[in-house]
């Protein structure tokens, strides 16, 4: 009897130590999912197909829009207030932010991990040009943040952005890529596009504990499909 109790206590201690060791050597969450291609490895990141000359995609969009009864004309400029991406369960508020004194784009504070920001020096979503939205991938307060699953978006997925004037712009993903921060393709992201387009940006790639930053950015490129009037 005594032996059995001894054995049980020793077993519990060994199991406990094992668990503690495993816990301190495994991640509580997994690193953010990455798009299929790591574009940052090439010196000149490829320009996503259709980022400027978007005539063929334009035709596709029109067929699409007609099917859903969307109005295809570009949207009147109005500040975005919310974003919804049903395929990865994102619903978030959007705030307008500009640039910091250092010339970097401003993003919501890490204490507001479920907030996204729209770069207000660029066009509003649905207007000609590229509208750019940022969101955090993770934050100490909550773990995975609003754009954690951005890397799972694939061409064809739909993004809905509602503007202050209550109209909703519908966008279709046509490319997703991971870029090294050192070769961040600013021109492909902010550059003017004749047809309205949308870019979603978050952090990705390996995390550099020394600098406290991710080494890359996940970027999703989407094109305007059409707009729908406020429901009801």
């Amino acid at each position, binding site marked *: 009897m005594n032996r059995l109790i*001894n054995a049980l206590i020793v077993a519990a201690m060994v199991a*406990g130590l094992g668990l503690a060791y495993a*816990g301190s050597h495994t991640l509580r969450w997994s690193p953010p999912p990455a798009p299929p291609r790591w574009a940052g490895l090439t010196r000149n990141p490829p320009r996503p197909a259709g980022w400027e000359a978007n005539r063929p995609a334009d035709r596709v969009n029109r067929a699409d829009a007609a099917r859903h009864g969307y109005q295809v004309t570009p949207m009147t400029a109005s500040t975005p207030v919310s974003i919804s991406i049903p395929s990865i369960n994102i619903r978030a508020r959007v705030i307008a932010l500009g640039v910091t004194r250092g010339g*970097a784009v401003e993003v919501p504070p890490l204490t507001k991990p479920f907030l996204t920001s729209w770069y207000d020096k660029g066009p509003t979503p649905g207007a000609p040009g590229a509208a750019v939205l940022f969101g955090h991938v993770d934050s100490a307060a909550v773990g995975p943040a609003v754009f954690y699953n951005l890397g799972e978006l694939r061409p064809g997925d739909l993004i809905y952005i509602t503007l202050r004037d209550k109209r909703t712009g519908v966008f279709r993903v046509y490319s997703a890529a991971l870029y090294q921060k050192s070769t*961040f393709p*600013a021109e492909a992201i902010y550059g*003017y596009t004749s047809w309205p387009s949308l870019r979603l940006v978050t952090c990705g790639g390996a995390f550099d504990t020394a600098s406290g930053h991710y080494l890359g950015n996940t970027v999703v490129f989407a094109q305007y499909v059409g707009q729908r009037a406020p429901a009801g």
Partner: protein
Amino acid sequence: MRVVTYAAATAGLIVAVLASGAPAALGDQRASLGEQAMSIFPNPSAPGTSTTFQINCASQSAPGPATSATLSGTELGLADQIPMQPTGQTDVFTTTVVLPTSLAPGTYNPEADCSNGTSASTTLQVNAVPSPAPPTGDGTTSTATNGVLTDAGLGLVGVAAVLGGVVLRRRRSGSRT
């Protein structure tokens, strides 16, 4: 009856104007200004962005329609004389250039000259493209270890230690009596 006709005509006109669509900025400006004028699209633009300049050379004082036009690009860090292409519309010429990536953000006043002696200029706002990629995460999901598992393990060790202590005490006191 007449009122109805007028109303219909007006409505038709409004629809036509509304339907003119996206690059309306160019068309509207051109239509409203019968005289020499320049328009730029997009405006504001940014370094590295392809930007279209269009000039209307028509002028009351000019001897006649222009046969060519040039854009002076020095101010924008481009070639001095950039030839503009005819558009098919009399007196209207256009050219599309990529603004140099080294162009400083600010306000510019590019000018274009027509062969009929007229010239036009307008204000171009160049906004900076934010350069550094933004920090959008603190690495929690890539670095945070499984605290729950660790706590559970340490808890188990603690419970086992307490139990062990209790058992040892009982055995000792049991052996004395």
